[in-house]
């Protein structure tokens, strides 16, 4: 009869199933790795990068209701941090031929996992500085102020030659091609974010999103929780940015342009603001779609009609189709729902009736 027992039993089942799912995911990666060519794997890797960045933005926008447009700025910080601490000293010397790199960075070379953590942490640190002025604002004001900070950062990165090599950017970042690295990192990110969202803190985020005034009346410290959400989102943007650097091996301040934020915003809107699984699915779909659309840029001969190929057409189609999604299909693929074990358990509980109420972990079922 004890609710507690029932609860922990169900939690154990959930844990078991989650582990099973992760194993399944790695088997899928194994199959993908052995059957796809390097081009397709690269696209999948890019999808993992976008998934991590998207998850970060979804914490801020989708779960806490803070309309931040500064994500690309945090990605840029992450990308540069990871690049600067992993590039071999001689490559750095070759890069910084106009203005030499400052001493502490010149010989620093850290392992990749440390670089990822550092990239996330520095991005989060920057977000804390920005949080003080930006998070006092609401709605559109927050949006434009965070966009402003991202643009300022980009100008700063272009000017700070002895750290960032200015507009020339960094070339020769150690490249990583392994699908296990990108999706492994993505899976770790998904698990951490899922845990956060389903925790008491995640609930506080959602309360702030739904009604700030009521949330505050429930004793939730708005500034603390908004900052927590903002910094966590920035952390994953930083990690995502670092991954991007390892994938493309060349970065410059243009990695922080608004278009980048827009791409990620589109991914999370398409997947559903407030849905983690939606973001991941959407990241894969959007990245693949962008690649598939490449054909419209290239010439095609239909025999009776030769299509000359219009460079840039792909982005026109892409922005138009996303516009259509926003206008006609606002809630995105998943809305606020998740595809998760709670769904399975909910079905199970319909048989066992009221005993099921104890079975609800604080990981909420989204009935939406």
């Amino acid at each position, binding site marked *: 009869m004890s609710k507690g027992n029932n609860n922990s039993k169900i939690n154990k089942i959930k844990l078991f199933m989650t582990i099973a799912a992760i194993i399944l995911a790695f088997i899928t990666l194994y199959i993908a790795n052995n059957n796809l060519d390097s081009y397709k794997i690269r696209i999948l890797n890019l999808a993992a990068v976008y998934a991590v960045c998207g998850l970060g933005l979804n914490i801020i*926008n989708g779960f806490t209701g803070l*309309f931040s447009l500064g994500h690309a700025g945090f990605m840029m910080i992450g990308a540069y941090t990871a690049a600067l601490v992993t590039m071999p000293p001689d490559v750095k010397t070759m890069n910084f031929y106009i203005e030499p790199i400052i001493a502490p960075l010149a010989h620093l070379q850290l392992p990749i996992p440390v670089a990822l953590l550092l990239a996330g942490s520095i991005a989060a640190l920057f977000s804390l500085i920005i949080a003080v*002025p*930006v998070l*006092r*604002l609401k*709605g*559109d*004001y927050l*949006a*434009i*102020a965070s*966009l*402003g*900070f991202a*643009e*300022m950062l980009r*100008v*700063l990165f*272009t*000017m700070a030659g002895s750290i960032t090599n200015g507009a020339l950017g960094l070339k020769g970042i150690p490249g990583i091609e392994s699908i296990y690295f990108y999706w492994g990192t993505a899976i770790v990110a998904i698990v951490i974010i899922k845990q956060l969202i389903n925790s008491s803190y995640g609930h506080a985020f959602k309360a702030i999103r739904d009604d700030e*005034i009521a949330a505050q009346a429930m004793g939730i410290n708005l500034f603390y929780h908004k900052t927590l959400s903002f910094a966590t989102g920035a952390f994953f943007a930083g990690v995502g940015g670092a991954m991007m650097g390892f994938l493309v091996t060349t970065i410059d301040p243009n990695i922080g342009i*608004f*278009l980048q934020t*827009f791409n990620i*915003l*589109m991914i999370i*809107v398409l997947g559903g*603001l407030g849905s983690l699984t939606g973001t991941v699915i959407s990241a894969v779909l959007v990245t693949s779609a962008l690649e598939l659309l490449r054909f419209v840029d290239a010439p095609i001969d239909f025999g009776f009609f030769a299509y000359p190929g*219009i*460079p*840039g*057409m792909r*982005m*026109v189609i*892409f*922005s*138009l189709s*996303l*516009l259509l999604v*926003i*206008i*006609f299909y*606002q809630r995105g693929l998943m809305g606020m729902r998740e595809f998760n074990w709670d769904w399975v358990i909910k079905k199970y509980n319909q048989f066992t009736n009221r005993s099921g109420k104890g079975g609800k972990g604080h990981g909420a079922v989204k009935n939406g």
Partner: protein
Amino acid sequence: MTFNIFLQHLANGISLGSLYALIAIGYTMVYGILRLINFAHGDLIMVAAYIAIYGIMMFKLPWWLSFTLAVIVTTIVGVIIERAAYKPLRSSPRISVLISAIGVSFFLENLAIVLFTGRPKPFPQPELFTTMLEVNNVYIMSLTFIIPVVTIVMLILLNYLVNKTTAGMAMRAVAKDFETSSLMGIEINKIVSYTFALGSGLAAIGGIMWGLKFPQIQPLIGVFPGLKCFIAAVVGGIGSITGATIGGFLLGIMEIMLVAFLPSLTGYRDAFAFVLLIVILIFRPTGIIGEKITEKV
């Protein structure tokens, strides 16, 4: 720095500021009515500039006709954008409309890349605007004077339209209280279109003058002026036409003076607007002339 050179900088500042003001008014009017940052507004600058170029270069129209056509077409484009991308979302959360606005902006930019390629095109320079005038041994291009004059004429015209005409009164009513106005029998859709038409028309005039001032036109030309003018509107107090005008002049003059007095900061010129924005948002979130709003609990 001699006094003469200072005057020259001031003239430049006023000229740039009045351009900002003209474009900022469109932002502020749309925000006043729909509470929407119209991200596509800046791209109308680009639309107007390209139409003007094609009118003169391809169709060999006289410049004044081409400019007029550019303003008319851009106005229509502005109204169509509202009808197609914002109106269906009027009852949706504001985040959706904002995303839609960003979507329109990217669509216009990408379309322009396809239609006109990314290569910059020179903007025609009719003689009227490029004559050098000598004032006190200082040479200033006639355009530097023409821009503020056009802006002032437009402001007077706008003031008349908003304060003295029925449509203008309806517009102010809608800005004050959207719901009540619709209950009072004001045709909201008409008024919203009217607002977009006015705002887009002004952006088009701003775009043409932008082209005359910075005669290299490429598809992304509207992005930075767009952002800066929105900032000018916020700095002045968004929702207020006077505020947008003050904000525009302030931003333009400060930007030119920053570069003139502290040349070492030239590289940070584009970041300056954002610094100003953040300072204003911290100390006076509703702008210079905006009133404090308290949320009803």
